């Protein structure tokens, strides 16, 4: 990458919300920043790039005050918090974190899967309470290796989940908008059929109008009594009230959830369930991957300001 330009020639980048300190420190030498909520008219007129750190909502109205805008650069993988229709109609480019988070998300998806099937977290709670059951009293768990896993969304994250689970001897199939010719796993055109043929369903696709609530009662009934749902995508992919009912009624066997419909609100009913493993939207988060995202963001912004092709543009 080119050395940062002298201070007074730094390009202006509008911020949708304040950056994490690590981000701000790393980027300060390269760009000037203004915060959208506080920006004066001059900055708003000048800004050609909008950097969206975190997951704040970015609406058509926000975009509307930036007449020179050409690029929306996001630090996340999923961009459902951005009004993509508005971006499309204005001819804006949108970039995301690309593959920066992919390995960590995939690792965590597998971690949740093993934790649910083998009750790792539950065993830990048990020991910490000072108890130790005799052989024969311990509830048997279920083998991870060899399970049939259905992956919804075989992108950067889903394909890495597949590779990891294949090493466990799991039989992997997938569902996505269209088949991926290079993928060595069977493609299943209908989500319900994928669920019916799987012991575990892993959600690693984007949240769009088409995918909202795609995991509904019908899909969960197809997944079935021993079935486990792992969600490292977006809470909105699942009909959450229906999920609670299905867990409560034993329609499915368990769930590993990193995301929820109204984060950070976790439905209280989940907190009392033994057959779920819950996390605080951390699948993407390791210090190493934050460094990776910074690289992608800098690469995209640098490319944009010097007229070169973007590194991780999204198809709108």
């Amino acid at each position, binding site marked *: 990458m080119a050395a940062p330009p002298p201070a007074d020639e730094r390009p202006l980048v509008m911020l949708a919300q304040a950056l994490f300190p690590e981000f701000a420190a790393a980027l300060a030498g390269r760009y000037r920043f203004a915060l959208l909520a506080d920006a004066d008219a001059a900055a708003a007129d000048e800004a050609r790039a909008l950097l969206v750190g975190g997951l704040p909502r970015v609406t058509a109205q926000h975009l509307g005050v930036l007449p020179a805008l050409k690029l929306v650069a996001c630090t996340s993988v999923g961009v459902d918090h951005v009004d993509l229709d508005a971006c499309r109609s204005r001819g804006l480019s949108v970039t995301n974190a690309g593959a920066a988070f992919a390995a960590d998300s995939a690792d965590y998806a597998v971690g949740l899967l093993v934790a649910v099937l083998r009750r790792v977290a539950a065993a*830990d709670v048990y*020991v910490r309470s000072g108890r130790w059951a*005799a052989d*024969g009293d311990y509830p048997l768990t*279920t*083998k991870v290796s060899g399970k049939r896993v259905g992956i919804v969304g075989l992108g950067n994250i889903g394909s890495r989940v597949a590779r990891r689970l294949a*090493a466990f001897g799991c039989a992997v199939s997938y569902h996505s908008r269209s088949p991926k010719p290079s993928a060595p796993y069977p493609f299943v055109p209908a989500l319900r059929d994928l669920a019916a043929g799987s012991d575990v369903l892993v959600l690693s696709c984007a949240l769009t109008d088409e995918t909202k609530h795609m995991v509904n009662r019908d899909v969960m009934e197809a997944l079935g009594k021993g079935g486990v749902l792992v969600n490292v995508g977006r809470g909105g992919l699942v009909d959450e009230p229906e999920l609670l009912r299905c867990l409560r009624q034993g329609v499915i066997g368990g769930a590993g959830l990193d995301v929820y419909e109204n984060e950070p609100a976790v439905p209280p009913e989940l907190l009392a369930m033994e057959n779920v493993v819950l996390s605080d939207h951390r699948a993407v988060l*390791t210090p*190493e991957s934050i460094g990776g995202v910074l690289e992608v963001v800098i690469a995209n912004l640098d490319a944009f300001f010097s007229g070169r092709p973007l590194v991780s543009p999204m198809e709108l």
Partner: protein
Amino acid sequence: HFRFFFVTCGTDRRGSFQLSAMASAGGNPLVLPAVLHLRRSDADFTAALSERFRVLDFFSSGEPLPAFLAAAAAAPEPPRAAVVVGGGSVRVDASFLDAVPSLRCVLTTGAGIDHIDLAECARRGVAVANSGEVFSTDVADYAVGLLLDVLRRVSAAERYVRRGSWPVQGDYPLGSKLGGKRVGIIGLGNIGSRIARRLEAFGCIIHYNSRKPKDSISYKYFGNVHDLAAESDVLIVACALNKATRHIVDKDVLEALGKGGVVINIGRGANIDEAELVVALREGKIAGAGLDVFEHEPKVPAELFSMENVVLSRHVAVFTEESRSDLRAHTVGNLEAFFSGQPLLTPVDADSLVQ
């Protein structure tokens, strides 16, 4: 299932008929072979054995072990086979074998054989078999699950969310990436090799120590555990417990592993100097640990309960429905092989003895 046939004594005055149970070869055909069963078991296991063998069950006898063994040995058809398990009170040593001299075969329903005096068995011509690979996959899966949990703080984040802290305190502290970590596996046998294969898919770099390097393996070999630890970010104990491997992870090894290092133990508690491990964790000399086994089970050092960077379980790495069912079939298979004069399916031979 019983293999039996009815013999009709057509000319018998009473018109009765004889029932003859065909037992497996090698014993009195009217009596199923006797098998000592010295472990706590589930109903399915006992039933599977009882269909084929005359099970002399220790724990339901209510007797102390010496009396139980003496009674079995004194019976008209004393048992030639015994089914045991490690981690309990039954040790297969000279006095055990003296108590039941009819024994010619000992099966243990685990991989570990540290509760069996192999030299004594060999001296007396008593064949020994373990569970072979029945549990290997489940233990490997669990080891990977423990490592993921420790590095990415799955259980800790779970507790955090369940306490209701997420909305109030924001995100729980981050974990650490798996990819690129150097994982040192102690013992590259059935379990260790499966762990290696799984972790390679996560982008880990595999190093190992075992008694001898394995020719066909491309992972980097280390002749001793200190050197392995010095060049690893993670140590996974997947070896047997014997004289050479007791406390194989000691204070020196933990120091070599260093401040960012993580220890995973799915072997035996005594493979690690547990007191030193607790000190190393308390003082931040290593970064965390995932432990399924402990030196003095069921006792777990209470100091571990308040640590956020450890993940604990009570020797459950083997406990899945699938392996429980596989174990039944495997044990029956070994017993049937023995009683029909065939080689055991998964013999533990003298090579397993400590050098």
